[in-house]
């Protein structure tokens, strides 16, 4: 019998909400570069006598994300205490949600392994506070010490939305695609910056293998699932799951049974390792937090967030394909970020042809963005200017070479007009009288070539092309090739 192993994958994604202050207190959420334990207060440190108060913006962002995932929003939602004893929680409990989450029953569509759209069901979205950070040693050695761990509560209390999927993914690639789709969505919504390296989007995966009879499709055995943590990039998600599938498959083929356990992805070594399992640790003793009244989501609040929804990235992709006739690969790149998609559309609105605008954005704009590590919305060249520049190329008033020079000058801070002047290009291209002068000069400087053409040795037209090339060089590519040919033909006609 030929057994086939089929992966079953569900993901829990923690998204840090883009708020200025923490979820239940007024401390700043911006702890990049802040000294440790700077953004803390009596509430997030869990000092006696303090009470949490919900951040309205965090609630709104949660509602917005829930709506975008087609979830039903619960009009009354409550917070629970999740109890566990660990130094990253000053209160020894995390305020989270349990059986009455903010949003439930949604879906997101990805491209499945067979290339067709695949629906991934969203079980729930709930709000919770983040835990503090433990540092076990520092690279600079200052905090070295085998006996001690170091605790920083700056992150404690930062608002998170936990988005839980159903186990609907069947491969590491689908899992990666799901995370990518979700990341793009939360960025579009302004719900989170979605930066996996900074930890604003964290992925835990539940993965098990089904052993199926290859001939009949009958389910022979379904292994326990393991939960994989610490995947800090899209690539890590894909690699960790591929590793875990192999590990479970080999285990099952050898007659073993995967255990229900939590495993840690070690990116450097490319393996998952078992975390010490403690049954008691999974007993979180959830109960409703008596310090927080139930949250009321009014129709007005829900409606306001519904109106705040932008065009969804998948809708935008459809529209870009239809409206601009762009190839799928172009669309994929352009809609990945909302500022970039907007930039492209503004170029087109300024007169650029969609295909050429797409090429310029994907090549030149990307190049400068990468070189300078700039986000699209802080790009130095205004979309209007690039749009006009590309339109000049469309109208053959500028060659691509000169247009690139103009673009680089604009990227260096010049306006379009300054950059055009600097590159020696007038907006109207080269006047034909000026061009004729250049052509006559080029012909005069190459009497041997003229002789060869005269003597009829240019049957293939190579000599003419050579002269055309010299003219193009002389005009620094600003001249229109067809126009040069026409004038050259008439000039040669006079001389032959």
């Amino acid at each position, binding site marked *: 019998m030929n057994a086939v192993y089929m992966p079953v994958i569900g993901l829990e994604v923690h998204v840090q909400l883009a708020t200025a202050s923490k979820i239940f207190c007024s401390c700043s959420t911006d702890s990049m570069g802040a000294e440790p334990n700077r953004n803390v207060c009596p509430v997030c440190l869990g000092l006696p006598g303090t009470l949490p108060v919900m951040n309205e913006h965090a609630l709104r962002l949660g509602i917005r994300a829930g709506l975008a995932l087609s979830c039903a929003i619960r009009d009354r939602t409550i917070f629970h205490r999740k109890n566990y004893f660990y130094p990253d929680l000053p209160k020894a409990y995390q305020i989270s949600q349990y059986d009455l989450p903010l949003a439930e029953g949604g879906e997101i569509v990805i491209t499945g392994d067979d290339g067709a759209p695949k629906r991934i069901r969203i079980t729930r979205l709930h709000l919770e506070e983040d835990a503090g950070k433990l540092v*076990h040693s520092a690279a600079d050695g200052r905090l070295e010490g085998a006996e001690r761990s170091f605790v920083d509560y700056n992150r404690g209390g930062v608002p998170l939305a936990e988005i839980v999927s159903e186990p609907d993914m069947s491969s590491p690639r689908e899992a990666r695609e799901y995370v990518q789709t979700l990341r793009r969505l939360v960025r579009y919504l302004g719900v989170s910056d979605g930066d996996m390296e900074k930890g604003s989007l964290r992925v835990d995966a539940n993965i098990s293998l089904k052993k199926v009879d290859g001939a009949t499709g009958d389910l022979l055995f379904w292994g326990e699932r393991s939960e994989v943590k610490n995947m800090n990039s899209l690539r890590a998600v894909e690699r960790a799951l591929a590793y875990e599938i192999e590990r479970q498959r080999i285990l099952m083929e050898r007659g073993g049974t995967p255990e229900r356990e939590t495993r840690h992805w070690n990116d450097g070594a490319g393996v998952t390792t078992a975390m010490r399992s403690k049954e008691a640790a999974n007993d979180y003793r959830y109960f409703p937090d008596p310090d927080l009244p139930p949250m009321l989501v009014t129709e007005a609040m829900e409606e306001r967030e519904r109106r705040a929804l932008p065009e969804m990235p998948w809708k935008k992709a459809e529209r870009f394909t239809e409206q601009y006739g762009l190839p799928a690969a172009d669309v994929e790149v352009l809609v990945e970020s909302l500022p970039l998609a907007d930039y492209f559309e503004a170029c087109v609105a300024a007169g650029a042809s969609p295909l050429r605008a797409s090429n310029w954005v994907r090549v030149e704009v990307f190049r400068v963005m990468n070189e300078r590590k700039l986000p699209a919305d802080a790009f130095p060249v205004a979309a209007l200017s690039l749009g006009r520049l590309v339109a000049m190329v469309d109208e053959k008033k500028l060659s691509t070479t000169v247009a690139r020079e103009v673009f680089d000058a604009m990227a260096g801070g010049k306006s379009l007009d300054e950059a055009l002047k600097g590159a020696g290009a007038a907006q109207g291209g080269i006047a034909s009288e000026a061009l004729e002068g250049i052509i006559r000069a080029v012909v005069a400087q190459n009497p041997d070539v003229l002789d060869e053409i005269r003597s009829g040795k240019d049957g293939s037209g190579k000599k003419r092309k050579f002269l055309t090339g010299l003219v193009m060089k002389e005009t620094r590519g600003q001249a229109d090739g067809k126009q040069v040919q026409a004038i050259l033909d008439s000039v040669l006609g006079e001389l032959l």
Partner: protein
Amino acid sequence: MTVSERDVRHVAELARLHVEDDEIVGLVGHFTGIMAHFNALARAGEEGRLPLDDLSPVVFAHDEIPPLRADEVVESSVGRAVLDAAPDAREGFFVVPRIMEGDE
């Protein structure tokens, strides 16, 4: 529901409480009493005495929208004082006995 010594030890472990062997029997008695009280509460909805079964945690005692906080940062200087009061602190960090990643 009867409470066993094992239950008491389990709860003590979850709460990270050290309990001496000779304290266990007494605690079993306390637990049993507490459970009896909850059983009494659970029965309160029977025979039409109180409509407790209809109550859920999302029922409001008052018909008012719970307060929400504007998303504004207010700095607190309490961190320094709390660090000073901590049993061990270094370089702005609270220092605790070493806990390896994954020791949850």
